[in-house]
Every structure is written in structure tokens, then in C-alpha cells.
């Protein structure tokens, strides 16, 4: 669901892309992208690997030319502007550090490129502070070849964050770090960005990271924007099966099946079960034109039951992955559908056990089986 911007004028402030497409050797990698990022806003660009995130960032930075469409910065068309004039800071997924410069000099380099008569006296202190936040202050004199993978990534991140650009593009900025440092840096970088006047795009293949850092999230799949919305929008009302599969650990279970009209009710029928849709879902089912539908089952909306239970889906335990605070149990139905369930308690559950699965009716979603788009009724 792209915001309907085509007819309206360009946004006066911030970054805006209008109808941007990009084709490499006859393959369209970006299709008709419309996007605005307001000053001070962080837009999380979430998409699987190969979706076009990096290409989109490179177009904004001026390193690629769009095949069609425009980029605006604060109302000015910069589509044809050379990269050096755009003042767009970009952190590359591949880091792109200068191999002959130390960590400190790598970080200093964009400031030097800009400063006419030397660096302002506060620059050194800013760099030091930033390196300290990123926990690489002690590596300031090292060369990139003497760094671990995560240390290189943080050097590249520092080099991007030290600038005061018109727009900041972070391409997978913390993908190489451990959970603890990622948790810390998500918060700290957000605070740094909160105080900044420029728009920021933070690209990541990790849906949960997108939910955490974005004021809004744009979901890019196979070169198209599938949905733009707040973290709550995306989580509670994913626009399509593809979006639903990108968010959540594990992602939502999707069962293909068909709708069957009964007396005063609609059933969802698939090879593993038949279920009468709860009223809210039955109402949204009306928006589905054909009979084909996907039922989405959230892994944390499912519960396990032993013994005979007519209302439960019959399954067998296929695998158990224990994560400390929760476990992911994969269940297999007799016809062979896999269903993942997230639970705090797997005591005395064993591989091969026969168990029933019940679902909370407010944790179900329905999608059009032909288009994959979500069917919602808004009250």
C-alpha cells in the first residue's frame, strides 16, 4: 500500500522519491517506488536479501541513476545531481573503509573532505564520544585489516554518523554484532538520530530490528513496496502474506485452503483442518473474491493440548528448539503441513508426541488466496 502521492506536489521538507524504477540488463530491480522520509524521521527499510534495499540507497546517494522517476531533497529535484553535491551520508553494507587509513582517520575523512580551513575544535571530541558509544575507542589507531568483522562494521557506522548530512542512509548497520551490543546500539543510535534534523533510512533484512528502530517501516519485496506503516500497523495488520512472513521469530504460519459457505457461517477448510471463522474474520472473508484463502496463525497465539479435543488441530511434534525464555515447537499435521508454535513451557514434550493445537481467535489473520493480500474489515 503505497501512499497516494503521485498526483500531489512534492514534500517541501525531507527526502522524497517519486515513481523511482531501476532496471539492470532488462531485469527490473526496483518498481515504481514512492517514498517520503520526513526531517528527523527514521524510516526502516525492511526486505529480504536481494529485494533492492542497497540499490535504493545507492540511488538516493547518487551512485546509481534511476531508470525513471525522481529524487527530491527538501523540495529540490536532485535526480541529476552528482553524489558529491547531495550531502547524503551512506554507510555501506560492505563497509568500504579506506584500507590505508586508521580507524580514527577513516571516521575523520568525511569531515576533512568538507572542512575548508581545518576541522572545528570540537570535532576531535565528537569523534571520541562517538567511538566510545560504539565501543571502538581503543581501536582508533588500528588499520581496517587489523579489525574483526564487527569492529569494521562499527567503524563504517561511525564514519556515517559523524557527518551532518541532508540525509543519512544506513545499510544493514548492525547486522554483524551480537544481541547485547545490538540492543544497546539500537537505543543509542535512535537517541543520536532523535536529536538530528535530517531524514534517515535504516535498511535491514531483520523484521524485528525494523520494528524496533523505525518511526515507520517500508517493506520492500522483490523491488516493490508492499506496505508502509508504523510498527504497530505492520505487526498487527500486515498487508500481505509476504509481509507477514518477514516479521516475527518464528514468522507467522500460513495455511493455504479455501472458504466454504455454511448456514450463517463461513468455514476455512484446508487439508489439515476445517474451522468455522470467528465473526470478525467471517466479515473480512467477504472481501475475498474467489474461494482460495490463506489462514495466518501467529506462533504465540497457539496452545498445545493433550488428549482428545475436537476443536484442536491434530499434530505430531516434529522438532523442539529451546531458547531459554521460550521454545519454538514445530508440529506436523497428518497431511504434512508444518506449524510453528512459540511457548514458554515445553516440559515433558517429546519428539513424536501426538498433540492438539488450539488457536486464539484474535490471533488469526485471513489473506486472499489469489493475490496474497490481507483481508481486513475496519470497524
Amino acid at each position, binding site marked *: 500500500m503505497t501512499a497516494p502521492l503521485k498526483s500531489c506536489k512534492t514534500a517541501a521538507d525531507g527526502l522524497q522519491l517519486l515513481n523511482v524504477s531501476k532496471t539492470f540488463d532488462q531485469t527490473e530491480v526496483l518498481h515504481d517506488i514512492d517514498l517520503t522520509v520526513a526531517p528527523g524521521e527514521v524510516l526502516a527499510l525492511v*526486505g*529480504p*536479501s*536481494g529485494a533492492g534495499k542497497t540499490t535504493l540507497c545507492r540511488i538516493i546517494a547518487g551512485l546509481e541513476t534511476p531508470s525513471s522517476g525522481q529524487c527530491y531533497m527538501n523540495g529540490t529535484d536532485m535526480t541529476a545531481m552528482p553524489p558529491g553535491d547531495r550531502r547524503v551520508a551512506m554507510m555501506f553494507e560492505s563497509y568500504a573503509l579506506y584500507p590505508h587509513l586508521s580507524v580514527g582517520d577513516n571516521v575523520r575523512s568525511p569531515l576533512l573532505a568538507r572542512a575548508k580551513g581545518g576541522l572545528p575544535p570540537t570535532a576531535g571530541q565528537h569523534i571520541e564520544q562517538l567511538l566510545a558509544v560504539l565501543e571502538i575507542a581503543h581501536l582508533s589507531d588500528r588499520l581496517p585489516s*587489523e*579489525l*574483526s*568483522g*564487527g*569492529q569494521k562494521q*562499527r567503524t563504517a557506522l561511525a564514519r556515517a554518523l559523524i557527518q551532518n548530512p541532508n540525509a543519512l542512509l544506513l545499510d*544493514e548497520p548492525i*547486522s*554483524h*554484532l*551480537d*544481541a*547485547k*551490543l545490538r*540492543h544497546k546500539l*539500537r*537505543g543509542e543510535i*535512535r537517541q543520536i538520530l532523535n536529536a538530528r534534523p535530517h531524514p534517515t533510512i535504516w535498511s535491514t*533484512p*531483520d*523484521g*524485528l530490528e525494523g*520494528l*524496533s528502530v523505525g518511526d515507520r517501516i517500508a517493506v520492500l519485496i522483490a523491488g516493490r513496496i508492499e506496505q508502509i506503516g508504523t*510498527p*504497530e500497523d505492520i*505487526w*498487527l495488520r500486515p498487508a500481505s502474506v509476504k509481509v507477514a*512472513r*518477514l*516479521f*516475527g*521469530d*518464528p*514468522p507467522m504460519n500460513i495455511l493455504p485452503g479455501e472458504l466454504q459457505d455454511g448456514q450463517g457461517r463461513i468455514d476455512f477448510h484446508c487439508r489439515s483442518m476445517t474451522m468455522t471463522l470467528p465473526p470478525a474474520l467471517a466479515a473480512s472473508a467477504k472481501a475475498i473474491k474467489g474461494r482460495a484463502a490463506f489462514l495466518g496463525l*501467529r*506462533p*504465540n497465539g497457539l496452545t498445545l493440548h493433550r488428549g482428545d479435543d475436537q476443536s484442536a488441530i491434530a499434530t505430531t511434534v516434529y*522438532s523442539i*528448539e*529451546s*531458547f*531459554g*525464555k521460550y521454545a*519454538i515447537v*514445530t508440529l506436523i499435521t497428518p497431511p504434512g503441513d508444518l506449524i510453528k508454535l*512459540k511457548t514458554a513451557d515445553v516440559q515433558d514434550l517429546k519428539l513424536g508426541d501426538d498433540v492438539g493445537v488450539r488457536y486464539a481467535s484474535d490471533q488469526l489473520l485471513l489473506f486472499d488466496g489469489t493475490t496474497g493480500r490481507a483481508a481486513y474489515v475496519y470497524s
Partner: protein
Amino acid sequence: MTAVEFQSVSKRYSAETPLAVANLNLLCREGELLALLGPSGCGKSSTLKMAAGLEDLTEGEILFGGRPVSALSAGRRNIAMVFEDYCLYPNLTIEDNIAFPLSVRGVDKNERRQRVGDVLAMLGLHDIAKRKVTDLSGGAQQRVAIGRAMVRDPDLILFDEPLSHLDGDQRIHLRAEISRLQKTRGITSILVTHDQNEATAMADRIAIMKGGVLQQVDTPARLYARPANTFVANFIGEPPMNLFPGEIGDDAGRITIPMLGEDIVIGDERRHAFAARRHSGLTLGLRPEHLIVEAAGDGAERQANAVVTYREPRGDADSLVLRILRDTSTMVAELAGPCTFRTGDKVRLRVPAANTNLFDSESGVNLEFDT
């Protein structure tokens, strides 16, 4: 199948820098998948590169199946490697890249086709098997590299961040497939990763390192429930475990938490852990999902002791950063999401005694850790 043993292994890159790996004694058992986990720069990749023969040892020895290997070059160790930046042959198709190690070893055509077919199917690459690898995204290239390592049943597979460029869905799929294959074929494997979920999902045991020094080797469940020290406690688990001071009160197991102005009582069965330590400092550890957060106000009834300073939505869970009113220290809580608390909300925090871990504040050692 080979066990891998690191015996007093150290690595120093240059005279000016500290040891990247310090006196490492570690056993990866036959058929086991052992994960190396730790903060960025702690020496995981260095350890793996020494096993691979890509870096020399400064001290110590590495044994494969009881035999020292430090004199053997990488090519003579019968190992397969999947590194983050491991290169494929750009001019070959996916299929030919995967078949390459078999062709080199003169495996006959039928068997080759069979084994390559299995791997292609497992990795979901069947439909694009004839494409050049240069046309693939980073994630797909990595799957080809994994396939190439798996295809020839090596004694040992070394993985360095194999999944770090994949998106969530692919990652979860691939980690399950790698571990299924690893288990069924029983290939001894060492996995370096920064992602604890990946380590937990895939590994039989996890070795935690910090600054080149091994901290604990244990099953994922034990690491989570009984971390050996405050470092491991705070490193494992997302968000990290809260660590805060406690003061041992009376003999009845009462512990005062000064920052909350609250007491908790540790049950009889755990009291022995600190019975003898009346006057030394205690650090309490509590996982964010165990911290109890209740709405509160300024009144005497349920008086607030903290304020929400930051809320991070994580889908089915939200994490809250909380500033303690008494001393402005912070704690992190995790609640089912999306939750109703917002930045600025005043709340009352409570610590459930049963879920606490108890550490010595000086050494950081878990008082209830038994090896």
C-alpha cells in the same frame, strides 16, 4: 568424523596488541556442533582460522582426532569452510560450484549427480541450479557456499557467520536445515556466530568467549538458566539480564534491594548459597521477562519506583527501558507486545525472588554454579 581439541592455544597478531586468543582449552566432541559465541572482537574468528590452518598458532596445539595438525597446511586437513566472505567460482553455475569439490576428487558422474541433487533440494536451489552465481543475491550465494561445503562429507565443517547476510525467514529455514543435515550425517562442526539465537537453535553446546578468554562451555539451556558469571549472564539473553546490587539481610534469607527500596526473601533450598557471606557484596541477576511491571502513580497506593524512558516494539514482545527513581540507574523489562506502557509512564517494579540469580559482586561468579 573427528573430535577437535584446542590445547592451551594462544594467538597474538602483533607485539603491540593484546592476545586475541588466550590459553584456550576447548574440546569439540566427535559429531558435535559447537558454537563459539561472544562479543565482537573476542577471538571467535581467530580461533576458527587457526583450526582451519589460515592463521598460525602463537602457542599451543590443535588436535584432530587426537593428532596434532599445526604442521599441516589448510589443504591437507580434510575440512570444509563456510565463511562470511567465502568466494564462489564466479564463472560457474550454482550446480557446478557445488559439484566442484567432487569433480576435483574424481567422484563418478552418477554419484556426483545424486549428491549434488540432494544438496540443491535441501537448500531450495533446484529451480535455479543452472544460473551463474554472480546473478545471485548475497543470501543465495551463501547458500551455494554451504552446499559446496556439505556435499563432500568432510571430517569437519567450520562455519564463520554463515547466515549473517540472510533475512529472518531464510535464516530460520537454513539454520534448521543445516542442523538437521549436520545431525543426520554426524559431521563435527564449529560455528562462529554473533547471533545467540542461531547458536542456541543449532548448537549442542556453546562456548562463550570474552577478550580471548573462554568463560563457559555448556548446553544452551544451562547457559540461560545458570550462567557461570555476570558476564555470561548479561551476554546471553535478549534483552540482557538485569544486574543490580543486593544486601544480605537477616538469616531468614532476606535480601534488600536498595535501589528499589524493597526486600525479597530467598527460599530455604537456595539459602545455603550465600549463608556464609553475610557481609560481602551480592549482585542479583533478573531476566527482563521476569521483572514485574505494574501501572503506578504518585499516591501511597502502588507508589511508582520507576519511569519508562524508552519502549522498543519487538512484535510479540515489547522491551521497556526503565529509569529507577531513587538512583537513576536503569533496568530493562520485557512484556507481551504490543503493550500499553508508553515513554514517560510511571510504574512500579517488583522482583520475583524465585527467578533471581545470585552472584558475588567482586568476582562476578554465580554462587549457585556447580560444574
